């Protein structure tokens, strides 16, 4: 079925648009295969609102005059559109039939299942060409850049046809002494084939962060020699490594009943296991839903607000993610030990913890490019199932399947780190907000599909544009940069005390008046810094001042000479 067949009414005139904190507007509404377009006809410089249909999480319609004739005078309907970026809009559409038509088109077109029908496959802006490079980094590049790895580690292409682990990229970094055959065995012993691979090598001491999924020990405590050898090779003779298991000890025990399990002390004698409980899946998704619901009603009393905030548990998830990341960093940086991180599947919390740990440890991941590379390696290539996790956001009434806002949780944690170290990150809150939006609905192909394998099959790289490439164009927008950026080589240890963690107002209160004042403050920061650059910048002041000095000194000499004369 062609997409256009979903559209029964393409244009409606005299639609009223209501947005929070803006006056209502009248104009024309237009539905296309991928967009909802509202344009205000009155002004010459007409104002337009363009919303990707994929950004729409839920729509609610209320039709007045239900029993009247379809085109009876005064019959109209109201559609409330709730977007995945948390914006809520209302459209008053004259004519009941039009209203229902529009609503059903939006419903159908906002929940397309087939990847190749999605907008990134049709997005062809004039300033971008499809032949350009796609993506920023790869396993091979990371290996090449990290000299410390060359000695003891190698790039394995055992997964080049995605048969060993369907969710891994084609190349992974593993200890040099472990051959591909052993990797295949280890993969069979791990859920989804996600055998332990290198995620990060610490530039100070060469200690590494590994990640994997849980071992399939099952009820009768199966073991796998190759898996044990692989981990032994990771620590290579040093005393100890840490396994950070992102489940409680009890949950890890229970996992054995369903074929999963954990690394037992007797078979992995050089590894010390630490359990940290992290919520996952549905619980986190519901947490987001509750938080957004709490934020959407400004008429609550303070008590009710605080109890809803507490009840949503969102900040508790932020707290545990940052604490566990801090623990990993402590192991690597302070104690000088390597770490293996895993939960169950190793595609969600595992990635959250390992990438946060890198942000805290590694100055290179705090630049714009470094951060985007980190996301690319640790989330996109590492096989976080974006399509499943971000199918719906906080408003949807659809039955939850695989949705889970783990990536949003990552962005929130990064924001918390930035609040505590406002000079340490090269990028700004605006970049985090942009990513929070793009991950749910995008013109670009970056967040499509669930793994490299799927992306390959769908031809994502050939047929869509890359978000990260476009963000990094030479004229990278100023708003994505932190004007106060001052790189530091040190680890930036965030405080995880509840008093230190805050609600991410920039995201969750994005569409309230609150955000407008913050915008003003952000502009003022820029103008202070710019003014400073103007005065102190090498171009202007140096020139002006040194010309002045030049002239000044020469005149003084002139005067001297004159006196002599």
């Amino acid at each position, binding site marked *: 079925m062609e997409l256009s067949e979903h559209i029964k009414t393409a244009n409606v005139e005299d639609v009223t648009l209501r947005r929070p904190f803006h006056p209502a507007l009248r104009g024309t509404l237009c539905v296309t295969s991928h967009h909802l377009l509202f344009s205000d006809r009155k002004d010459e410089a007409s104002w337009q609102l363009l919303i990707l249909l994929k950004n729409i999480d839920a729509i609610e319609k209320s039709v007045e005059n239900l029993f009247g004739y379809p085109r009876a005078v005064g019959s109209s309907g109201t559609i409330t559109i709730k977007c995945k970026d948390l914006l809520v809009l209302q459209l008053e559409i004259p004519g009941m039939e039009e209203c229902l038509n529009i609503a059903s088109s939006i419903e159908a077109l906002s929940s397309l299942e087939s990847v190749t029908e999605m907008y990134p496959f049709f997005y062809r802006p004039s300033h971008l060409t499809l032949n350009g490079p796609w993506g920023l980094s790869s396993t091979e590049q990371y290996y090449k850049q990290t000299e410390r790895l060359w000695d003891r580690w190698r790039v394995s292409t055992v997964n080049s046809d995605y048969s060993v682990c369907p969710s891994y990229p084609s190349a992974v970094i593993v200890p040099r002494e472990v051959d591909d055959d052993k990797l295949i065995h280890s993969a069979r012993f791990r859920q989804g084939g996600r055998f332990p691979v290198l995620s990060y090598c610490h530039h100070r001491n060469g200690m590494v962060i590994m990640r994997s999924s849980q071992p399939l020990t099952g009820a009768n405590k199966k073991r796998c020699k190759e898996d044990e050898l692989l981990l032994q090779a990771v620590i290579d003779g040093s005393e100890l490594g840490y396994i950070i298991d992102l489940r409680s000890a009890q949950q890890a025990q229970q996992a054995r009943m369903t074929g999963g399990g954990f690394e037992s002390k007797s078979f992995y004698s050089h590894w010390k296991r630490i359990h940290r409980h992290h919520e996952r899946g549905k619980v986190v998704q519901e947490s987001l839903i509750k938080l957004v619901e709490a*934020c959407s009603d*400004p008429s*609550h*009393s*303070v*008590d009710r*607000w*605080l*109890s809803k905030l*507490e009840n949503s*548990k969102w*900040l*508790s998830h932020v*707290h545990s993610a940052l604490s566990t990341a801090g623990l990993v960093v402590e192991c690597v940086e302070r104690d000088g030990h390597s770490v293996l991180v895993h939960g169950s599947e190793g595609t969600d919390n595992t990635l959250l913890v390992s990438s946060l740990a890198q942000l805290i440890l590694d100055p290179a991941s705090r630049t714009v490019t470094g951060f985007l590379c980190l996301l690319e390696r640790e989330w996109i290539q590492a096989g976080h199932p974006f399509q499943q996790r971000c199918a719906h956001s906080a408003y949807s009434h659809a039955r939850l399947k695989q949705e889970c806002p783990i990536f949003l949780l990552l962005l929130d944690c990064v924001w918390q780190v930035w609040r*505590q*170290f*406002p*000079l340490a990150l090269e990028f700004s809150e605006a970049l985090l907000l942009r990513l929070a939006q793009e991950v749910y609905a995008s013109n670009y192909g970056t967040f499509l599909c669930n793994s490299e394998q799927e992306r390959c099959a769908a031809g994502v790289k050939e047929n869509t544009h890359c978000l990260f490439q476009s963000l990094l164009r030479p004229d990278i927008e100023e708003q994505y940069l932190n004007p*106060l950026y*001052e790189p530091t080589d040190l680890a*930036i*240890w965030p*405080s995880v*005390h*509840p*008093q*230190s963690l805050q*609600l991410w*107002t920039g995201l969750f209160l994005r569409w*309230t*008046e*609150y955000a407008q*004042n*913050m915008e*003003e*403050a952000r502009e*003022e920061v820029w103008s*202070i*810094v710019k*003014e*400073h650059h103007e*005065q*102190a910048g*090498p171009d202007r*002041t140096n020139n*002006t*001042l*040194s010309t*002045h*000095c*030049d002239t*000044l*000194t*020469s*005149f003084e*000499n*002139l*005067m001297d000479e*004159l006196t002599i*004369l």
Partner: protein
Amino acid sequence: MEHIRMPKVENVRLVDRSSSRRTHVGTLYLTATHTIFVGEGSEDRNELWVLHSLVCNVVKHKASQSGYPLLIHCKNFQVIQFIIPQESDCHDVYISLSRLSRPEKYEELYCFSFNPNVDKAEREHSWDFLDLKAEYSRMGLPNKLWHVTPINREYRVCDTYPADLFVPKSVTLPVIVGSSKFRSRGRFPTLSYYCKENHATICRSSQPLSGFSARCLEDEQMLQAIMKSNPGSRFMYVVGTRPKLNAMANRAAGKGYENEDNYCNIKFQFIGIENIHVMRNSQQKLIEVSALRSPSMGEFLTGLENSDWLRHIKSIMEAGLFISKAVAEEGVSVLVHCSDGWDRTAQVCSVASVLLDPYYRTLKGLMVLIEKDWVSFGHMFSHRCGHLIGEAKEVSPVIDQFLECVWQLMEQFPCAFEYSEKFLISIHNHIYSCHYGNFICNSQKERKDLILCIIKEKAHSIWLHLWEKKLDFMNPLFKPDQSQNQGLLRPSTAPYCFKYWRRLYNRFDRELHPRQSELDCLMTVKEETQQLEEELALYEQKMAVLDKERAKTLYMQKGVLDSKQALWSLPLDISLANTPQDYIGGAPNLCLFGDQTKSSDADNSDQESGVADFSSHSSGEESLPSEDSVKDPDSDETAM
């Protein structure tokens, strides 16, 4: 000194609150004014000074293996734990401190022994820094509708009011006297704020003694006159800041609130703010939450909710917002009262003033506002802050709540305030520390009568001191010209806009705060920019002078010099030493890590420890010599 049973204890351990395993060993000294702990070990000179007047309470804990723990809770929310090896020493310190921290007479307070190195003239000058008369004339008073009544010059009509009070010109002395007799403690309606633009006013008073049916003609005339003094309006609001139930209960005791039927053209409005006892308990709960060691997120949020503190802050803010909107948007005058008119009334009037008038969002403006609405109008600082030993039931964090309302506004409007939260925290600290004489006593009369001589003879005023340090308190984001910072601020009172004030309640828990400060960094950047601008201006001025000279000399000597141009390129290093490369190179060091700055002052927990010092200040001084070193042919003209 006679209270010090134990001037010195050795081998005392100071427990680090962030991790109880870390302790510092040192010697504890008790002096007449401070408890001093000097840590051993030469490399980190480790000193802790705690003013006795800041001590809230001292608690002995159960003996542990390592000794006898002594916990000191301070009014600025610092908590200090010592472990003393001998039980008898611990007891002696406990007894001494308990006495020293509860002075019985004003004369024992620290402000009377604090003696900075300034002479008498300077001290007296410090008391003249703020002038309330000037503040009223800034508002546009006196004018043809309002004037100062001499009636309270001797504090005979109302002993808790200031001597100078503004009332409508049309009101006669008998009316004032009559009205004052009909109001609790004689606190008749008088002006607090006057809005030049539309003549609307905020007036304040105590509750009327109306009971169920009593009336007072003079009081009714008084309100009528206030209403009429705002020619544009047809009615006025009377805002009762107590919960309606409390106000009704007061009727039974012959007090209460105005009956709309008896007063012409008033609209009575209840805005429920709880009383001082509720607020005291609420803050106590909040302090307990803030002092929890590594609570879970849930425990913290539940504790915050159960304290009700933010709910109270919101109710004060809403009352202030109602009044400021009535004045600015409706142009209607408002009379505010609670019971006695010195707690909730002071809060609400001053919050409304901050919302209404950008002046109060400047450093000097906030000082004046506190001096006017709180100090002069008889907020009972000594009772509410527990300066002297006395009724525990009189203590209440009323002024804390006002300062917090201002902080909440700063969080919502980061560009609207000239000062930063450091200023608020510093004021808070000084209100409790009794370091300066301003917040001693409960009313202007008490201050004048009882100890006028010693306050002005011996104590110093805080305001000049803060003003001199104003660079430390500036908000770099302040944009006075921004249109939305002009006139009325319209804060959102949505519940998510009220936040926990970590910088105040966890002020001394360093590990809880951001490790880098955005505002400090911006301040440094701003100062550098200004220096550079000044430098540039200086050069341009010199250029102008030289241009003139050149015009003259070249005209005279043109031919001679042409051949010698090559010689003119001369050593520029002296003047270049101070050019921008220097600043660019220096900038990274100047972008201060909170840690570094704090560590410099954290250990002497002096009153100013909340204030980071900017190492960048020195660069301003460094730049001076090299400016001078550029030889100036005509220094008189170019001097700045």
